[in-house]
């Protein structure tokens, strides 16, 4: 009894240890496998870390398969078992390897001796992919099936349901009147028919006499044994076509078909449906920055939106509406986000795309001018708006009321680019905008507009509370030689606040006066130049005198020179000196 018990006990213990070892090895292997997917994704193919992980996996598989023959894993919803022992468990639907297999219908996976590194890597590639329900092309079973592993096998149930698919019984497919047929009657009729060698037409007669081969030989005019052998040329031609199709851009093929349908399809429902698919594809191209493929589509759509190129005005309108869908705020916002993420945008193509949009895009693009991150793209958006809104300025104006000053500034810039006198009335509405940058942009904008109203508005900013705005206005008045602004400038000079301005601004004011070269300024400049300084006002008077001389230096009218000559005989030596120096400078400049 004791011996037997010992024997039995020894035997079981050994077996148990062996079993325990195998389970431990299997658990370790599955854990490594589960982690490897994530890890391998991180490292590039040349990384030594990656190679280390691969080597470790290879080693573990080799060890297991050498010791245990094969690794047969059973899949439960959240667990993987080996030899009825749970060796992997993860209740997270997102992360569980078991759930990934189970959800796809896989119930067991078996790795067999001979497993190669490539198979392991391919397998990891499959299990570490992200599978979505929509991506029905690439579920795990399909990927395993396509790989056709020699040493990895799986079993699966029908897709997402354990029950068998209800099948149509084969009996349904056997014509009811046939039964097993009457072969004797076939025989009787056909043998006698053949003997009589008759047929219901020439072809049958020919066939009846000599079988199908003669008919075929007559068609191909060759012996039957030669007709169906593929020639080297035919083989090469088909192989070439297969190679071509292997590298074929399927989306372009699809678009080709859809455009063929648009050319022939008059039924509006289908036309619209096809159009929607084309537009969706176009949107995908554009959002991914693939303007190369996107632009030709939009060009074709633009052509089709013209009534002359379509079946009817209704069809053309459908195309126009499809293009409208590219201009809606939601899409332009997506585009802007994608541009913000991708700094390497082909600006020329982006410009082409945006300028082909319908006018409904104006508001969307103008709203996005505040969201775009790159300055050059913001400028591009504005340039696009200047083109799109040239005849639809009213669509831009809403942006002038935007609570974000930078959007307002951008719209003002666009109005300036458009350069239409029409814009002045809109700009006047915001001439006192609280943000100096906006006012400054208005100054730039009105400088671009050639109208008296524009120049008046420009002069308005000579008295702006922000010095940079005032200076910009002065500079633009000087650039455009706007003499009408002279009285306003003179008023500033004689105004109470002039002395409070900083030296640079004062200099700019006089310089502008000089550039404008207006006789109207002479008497004012003379007063400043000839004014004698008192004890307490000496410094101020001399500063102004210097500015006046500087203004006169810039002037080319004779009145300026005459006035300086007059100063040469002034009793005040300092006035005489400054007049002399200024005249010398002017003469030198003249030479």
């Amino acid at each position, binding site marked *: 009894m004791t011996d037997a018990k010992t024997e039995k006990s020894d035997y079981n213990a050994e077996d148990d240890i062996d079993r325990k070892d195998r389970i431990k090895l299997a658990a370790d292997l599955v854990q490594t496998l589960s982690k490897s997917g994530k890890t391998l994704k991180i490292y590039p193919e040349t990384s030594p870390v990656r190679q280390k992980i691969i080597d470790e996996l290879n080693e573990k598989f080799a060890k297991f398969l050498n010791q245990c023959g094969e690794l047969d894993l059973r899949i439960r919803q959240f667990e993987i078992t080996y030899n009825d022992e749970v060796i992997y468990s993860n209740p997270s639907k997102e992360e569980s390897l078991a759930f990934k297999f189970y959800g796809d219908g896989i*119930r*067991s996976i078996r790795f067999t001796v001979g497993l190669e590194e490539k198979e392991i890597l391919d397998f990891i590639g499959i299990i570490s992919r992200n599978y979505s329900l929509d*991506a*029905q*092309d690439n*579920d795990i079973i*399909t990927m395993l*099936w*396509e790989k*056709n*592993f*020699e040493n990895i*096998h799986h*079993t*699966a149930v*029908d*897709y997402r349901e354990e029950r068998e*698919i*209800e*099948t*149509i019984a084969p009996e*349904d*497919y056997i*014509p009811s*009147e*046939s039964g*097993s047929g009457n*072969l*004797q009657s*076939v*025989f*009787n*009729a056909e043998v006698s028919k*053949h003997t009589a060698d008759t047929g219901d037409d020439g072809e049958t007669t020919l*066939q009846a006499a000599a*079988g*199908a*081969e003669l*008919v*075929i030989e007559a*068609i191909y005019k060759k012996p039957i*044994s030669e*007709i*169906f*052998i*593929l020639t080297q040329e035919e*083989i090469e031609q*088909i192989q070439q076509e*297969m190679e071509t199709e292997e590298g074929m851009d*399927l*989306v372009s*093929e699809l678009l080709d*078909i*859809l455009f*063929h349908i648009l*050319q022939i*399809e008059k039924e509006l429902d*289908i036309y619209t*449906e096809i159009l929607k698919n084309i537009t969706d*594809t176009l949107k995908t191209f554009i959002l991914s920055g693939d303007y190369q493929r996107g632009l030709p589509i939009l060009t074709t759509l633009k052509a089709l939106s013209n009534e002359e190129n379509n079946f009817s005005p209704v069809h053309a309108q459908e195309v126009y509406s499809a293009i409208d869908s590219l201009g809606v705020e939601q899409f332009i916002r997506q585009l802007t986000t994608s541009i913000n993420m991708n700094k390497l945008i082909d600006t020329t193509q982006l410009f082409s795309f945006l300028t082909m949009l319908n006018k409904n895009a104006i508001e969307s693009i103008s709203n996005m001018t505040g969201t775009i991150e790159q300055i050059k793209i913001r400028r591009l958006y504005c340039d696009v708006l200047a083109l799109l809104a040239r005849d639809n300025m009213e669509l831009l104006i809403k942006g002038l009321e935007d609570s974000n000053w930078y959007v307002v500034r951008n719209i003002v810039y666009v109005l300036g680019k458009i350069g239409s006198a029409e814009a002045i009335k809109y700009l006047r509405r915001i001439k006192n905008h609280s943000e100096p940058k906006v006012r400054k942009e208005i100054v730039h904008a009105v400088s671009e507009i050639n109208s008296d109203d524009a120049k008046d508005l420009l002069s308005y900013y000579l008295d702006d509370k922000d010095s940079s705005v005032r200076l910009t206005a002065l500079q633009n008045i000087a650039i455009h030689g706007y003499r009408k602004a002279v009285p306003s400038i003179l008023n500033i000079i004689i105004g109470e606040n002039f002395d409070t301005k900083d030296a640079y601004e004062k200099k700019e004011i006089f310089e502008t006066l000089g550039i404008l070269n207006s006789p109207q300024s002479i008497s004012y400049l003379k007063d400043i130049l000839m004014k004698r300084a008192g004890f307490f006002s000496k410094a101020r008077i001399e500063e102004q005198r210097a500015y006046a001389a500087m203004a006169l230096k810039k002037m080319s009218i004779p009145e300026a020179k005459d006035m300086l000559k007059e100063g040469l005989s002034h009793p005040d030596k300092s006035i005489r000196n400054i007049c002399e120096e200024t005249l010398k400078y002017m003469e030198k400049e003249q030479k």
Partner: protein
Amino acid sequence: MNEKPSMGKKDASGKEFINNLHILIKTALIHDSSNIAITTPLTKTMDSVHLLLAGRDSFSLRLIHDNLFINDTKIRVDIENFLASMFLTGEMKKNNTGKITFHLQLSANELRQFVYAFISPVSKAPTSNETFEDVLDKLSSYSIKNITIDRLQEETGSLGQPVRTTQEMAANIYFKTISVVSEIMDSTKLKNAANMTKAKRLIQSMVDLMLQDESTILGLTTLKAYDEYTYNHSVNVSILSLAMGQRLGYNRKELSDLGMATLFHDIGKIDMPVDLLNKPTDFTPEEWQIIRRHPVYGVKTLLKLKGLQERAIKMVMVSFEHHLNYDLSGYPKLLSPKRVSLFGRIASITDCYDALTSSRVYNRNPFLPDRALFFMMKKSGTAFDPTLLKIFINVVGIYPVGTLVLLSTNELGLVIQANPSPVNIHRPLIKLITDPKGNEIDGDTVDLSKHENITIKRSIDHRKYGVDVSKYFL
């Protein structure tokens, strides 16, 4: 549950070996054994021999029913090894050799000597037993020990008969696929979400079966359901297309895509009025106009189903192109030229063939399979791509599987497998179903290419006599 068979690597090394051996023998036919030109093909063949010998003592190249096997794995004939397979089959038959075994110790010199022994002109009549003895003698005189040959076996009926389990599996998949197609089409019609994955899995199983045993699954296309024409037709077109795809050498993924695309080539018909589809009389020109809308309707439906994924695009292509015709003379009529894809061209052939040979509400007297082929051959180069049509005829034979024939022996037989050799395309494998007196029998399978004295007198319209040929494939 079903375990997937694995065939890929073995199949590839087998094909490589066949191609290399073909080149080696062809070179040997031109140059003598000392010529430098023989070196490269000899090295390449040795390389592929070593690949096949990895881990084994020997392997055999076998010829069974005009099919080449490496051990028990049938070599898949496709566009790449078509000529090589045909050539080697011919050479082995010429020498009456059914099996060539290559052993582990084989040297390049032995292989060289073997090739020259194998191709030496024979004094006896081709395919006689003496030719085999001649080769055997030469091998012995050259002391070739590591290549042995066996005589070509007389083939019995059982060799060509499909295994019952494969047949059952094929039928099971066939009917499940019909159910799934009808389910998907019905859901789509009702604007419900369709579960394409079920269909995809069945197509994958069908591809596996096709790679294992083409003729069994091809035989199922003889099933013609009058009431369920559209679904039945869809599955048949898919099977016939897969067989063509296999000959073209498509990989598993491409075959699966082809199978799916052709399975739903007629999905546009769900938008056709049912009364029109079931109209018992001929269509008026106006009704034809409506029927001809289905390729475009199909595109619309498929776009809704699947978005822009690769497989869905191929489905769209087939739906749109399957009636366009090779020369664009079909429908829809296009306003500008377009290249029809290979999938589209394949579908146009298989669709036309199955449609012509099927009973439909409006076509109660369908063509016999061979008549359908004559009709199609006349349109080779116009409606159909001539090379693909050739390949199709290579797949189905000129007496396609399921054709009831009267033999010159006055026996009735049923074509159960096309002859794999295009030279013997008119000599398929026949199952005898009556004796010469017309009594029904469960007869042998006869390979007509082995019995030159037996010829096919004519094909017979089995429907006319109420004979259901599909029962021989179920």
